[in-house]
């Protein structure tokens, strides 16, 4: 019974955290420009939100390694791409021009 209560408490807390991070993102969206610092923050926010859903909502934290890794890697790669695209747009445009 105690374990059930603590798992409910944890999920409630994580939901509040996700909503807080979303509202913070909305605040960032209202800023006139996006600098490097805010791009990194947004990428980190996405990584944290993704990880919470994968680990706790989908319950993959202690699951099969391959499934867990595939899902977790997604939320390392996309945030990393967000930062790389911001840092090296010309170079990436050059590499991807036919």
């Amino acid at each position, binding site marked *: 019974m105690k374990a059930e209560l603590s*798992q409910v408490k944890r999920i409630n807390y994580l939901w509040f955290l996700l909503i807080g991070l979303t509202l913070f*993102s*909305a605040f*960032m*969206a209202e800023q006139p420009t996006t600098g490097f610092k805010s791009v990194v923050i947004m990428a980190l926010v996405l990584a944290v939100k993704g990880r919470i859903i994968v680990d706790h*909502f989908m319950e993959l934290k202690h*699951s*099969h390694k391959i499934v867990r890794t595939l899902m977790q890697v997604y939320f390392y790669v996309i945030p990393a791409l967000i930062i790389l695209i911001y840092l090296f*747009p010309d170079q990436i445009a050059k590499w*991807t021009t036919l």
Partner: protein
Amino acid sequence: MNTIVHSEYGREIKFHHRSDRVPGNMAIWAAILAEMSEFAIMFIVYFLAKVHHPDIFQEGPARLNTLAGTANTVIMLTSSFFVVRAVFSMRNNNPETSSRWLWGAVVCGVLYLIIKYFEYQWNSAQGLATETNIFYGVYYYVTFNHFLHVGWGSAAIVWVIYRINTGNYTKDEHEGLINMALYWHMIDLAWITIFPLMYVIR
């Protein structure tokens, strides 16, 4: 790794091998990984279009309705939370409560669709359409695709509610509920990625 650890979830599972357990069945994981790959391709298209048209992608998010995007993010996350609580209730042998949580998720899904409909109408009034420029082309392609997922995902939740109410799931056997929950979380994951790309990052 075969270390025995305490499970955080589901009181019926007291111990498990860390590397063995996979929630849901193989079919749902094939579907989820296929869908995640589909969205990944769309995100790569977004990144490529962005580096080739930086000015258009800098202006694009500023003209979208941030309030609608934020509201839908809150709604999607809340619906996922409701689905988790539905799974917990079923594990606690409380199908009626589980069903109620799922109705909450359905309401969220419908609200999402209504807000997205009005957001598209609002865009249209601002003169924003698929042919306006490449940013809005990508935005409409990705968000409409997601819109469809929310639509059929909501229908799947209603089906699971029917299965619960007709006594098809028990505390020990409710794989259909778990599969639907995983699929719905995947739809949520796609949206939390779409939100910063389309509405936040310039």
